[in-house]
């Protein structure tokens, strides 16, 4: 083996036995370090995975959603608006959408009711999500009773339980036919919840949106890109909030690590003096100290990352779930698809491993530049 490699090997060997000599101190440092990396990496993994999930969901979202506004609030939109919007040049298709929320007082649960544009359930039939089936203890062929706005019971037969794979979107979902939907909510015949607009040329999206507002000043067109941006912002904000919460932990770690790493004890100083006196160069001492720093920080970093990966992608992040998912945006109990953002992880690496290693080396460098005869005089 070449000499330089052997030198590294010998010094690394010595660094390891040096670390073992101060076992309690180094193990506590390692555990704390791992926890911090674990927490930060969990947030990174979680937000990245959610953003990815949201992006996938919105891939098939309509180009533009048009809502009617009354005094700045969302109102039902007349379906004949759709006919006029369809006449705008560049618009390919306009579809009225019917959807809403139903509060189930017996189970204190909110269901999302949607009338699908394609293949809606036949009258008197519904398809329900897993969450609804669980809460109401329903199976295929069972009857589900919903209370209409006219205080009448509407009995619907469960035709299908939606696939568990799509639980993120379908957990609280009830797919229902148009007539049943209108009966349930006493929904007028000539209105819809909103309109979806498909545009022939994506470059013309903003132009079309502008034309819609010009013709119907009481509407608000929402572009797909805006929805994506909102999702991004929500997850970034939630991730950021977690990071802020974790900052306290990070700061205490920094103080702890700084104290442990920089506070060379008299004994360590003496050891450096001995090494110098028996023929070690300043660079040899620095190599030793960097190996000591790297062994702790790199192994804590790698283990922290692995634990965070398992925490988020195998166990669905039980520790951060409530803070990060939030109500009304996503629903509990679904498994995230692993997403690994190299940039974010590198950033984490540079923010944790490098400062620690530097904090270890600088005081040692100061001690290592003492004259080798100092040990002779001690």
């Amino acid at each position, binding site marked *: *083996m*070449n*000499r*330089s*490699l*052997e*030198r590294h*090997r*010998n*010094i690394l*060997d*010595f660094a390891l*036995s*040096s670390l073992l*000599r101060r076992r309690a101190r180094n193990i506590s440092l390692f555990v704390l370090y791992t926890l911090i990396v674990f927490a930060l990496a969990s947030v990174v993994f979680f937000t990245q995975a959610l953003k990815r999930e949201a992006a996938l969901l919105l891939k098939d979202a309509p180009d533009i959603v048009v809502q009617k506004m009354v005094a700045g609030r969302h109102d039902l939109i007349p379906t004949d608006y759709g006919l006029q919007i369809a006449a705008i040049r560049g618009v390919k298709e306009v579809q009225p959408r019917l959807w809403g929320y139903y509060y189930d007082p017996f189970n204190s649960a909110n269901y999302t009711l949607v009338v699908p544009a394609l293949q809606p359930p036949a009258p008197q039939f519904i398809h329900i999500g897993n969450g609804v089936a669980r809460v109401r203890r329903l199976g295929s062929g069972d009857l589900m009773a919903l209370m209409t706005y006219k205080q009448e019971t509407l009995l619907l037969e469960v035709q299908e339980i939606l696939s568990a794979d799509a639980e993120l979107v379908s957990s609280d979902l009830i797919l229902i036919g148009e007539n049943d939907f209108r009966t349930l909510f006493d929904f007028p015949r000539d209105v819809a919840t909103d309109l979806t607009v498909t545009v022939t040329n994506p470059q013309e999206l903003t132009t079309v949106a502008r034309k819609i507002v010009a013709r119907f000043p009481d509407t608000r067109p929402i572009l797909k890109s805006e929805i994506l941006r909102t999702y991004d912002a929500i997850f970034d904000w939630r991730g950021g909030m977690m990071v802020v919460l974790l900052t306290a932990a990070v700061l205490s770690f920094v103080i702890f690590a700084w104290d442990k790493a920089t506070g060379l004890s008299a*004994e360590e100083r003496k*050891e450096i003096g*001995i*090494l110098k*006196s*028996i*023929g*070690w*160069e*300043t660079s*040899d001492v620095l190599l030793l100290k960097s190996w000591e720093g790297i062994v702790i920080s790199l192994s804590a970093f790698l283990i922290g990352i692995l634990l965070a990966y398992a925490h988020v992608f195998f166990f669905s992040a039980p520790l951060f779930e409530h803070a990060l998912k939030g109500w009304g945006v996503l629903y509990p109990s679904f498994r995230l698809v692993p997403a690994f953002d190299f940039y974010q992880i590198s950033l984490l690496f540079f923010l944790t491993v490098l400062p620690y290693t530097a904090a270890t080396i600088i005081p040692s460098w100061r001690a290592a530049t003492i*004259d*080798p*005869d100092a*040990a*002779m*005089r*001690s």
Partner: protein
Amino acid sequence: MIELSHISKSFNVGKGNQFTALDDVSLNIDRGKVTILKGPSGSGKTTLMTVLGCMSRPTTGRIKLHGINVSGVTGDAGLDTLEITSLPERFLTEIRRSTFGFIFQHFNLVKGLTVLENVLLPAYPLGENFTILRQRGMDLLGMFNITRHAAAPVDRLSGGEMQRVAIARALINNPAVIIADEPTAHLDSALSREFMTILADFKKDGRTILVASHDPIIYDSTLADTVIEMRDGRVTSIAERG
């Protein structure tokens, strides 16, 4: 082998507390001989040893090494002489670890490390194959009859055993010169005599030995070829024996 001419060493130069530890010292250390530096505390023995052993630089004067080969450092062509006072730190370290083996008054062993690790320490930065290095370390422990302690933490040893570890460590890079600073200061008479036996073996191997001591067991020993007496940073007498 080592030639000192007009060496002075002052500390805290230019400050109010400046003091001169060595004052115009000139002498020669001969190859394969035992040289004893004798004198009371504060006479400049240790400072002279550190200057000789390339641990510190003299304030003025020159040190020349004759007939010593250090890799990467070349002396005056054809003269086989190396003037070391002006060499950069890196070369001084190279000379120090390949030419000199140090035995310190307080042993200066690293606590918590095993006996074997302590012995191998000076060789780690040289990048030698670990298996060969380890074998050499074990051979040295065998030579000083402390092989059984190889894996024991060094702080569990007795004073005499610690010193043997310190001597083994001084020998790990097979130096031509052994420098010992008050080596018997913490040993009883029996152990001090045992140390002298070890010195006799070094002399037999042809090593150059330099010992600073005010212990009569050392400076009255028949092993000593030259006894240099010092006081107040100056050489007061040089006695050649045998």
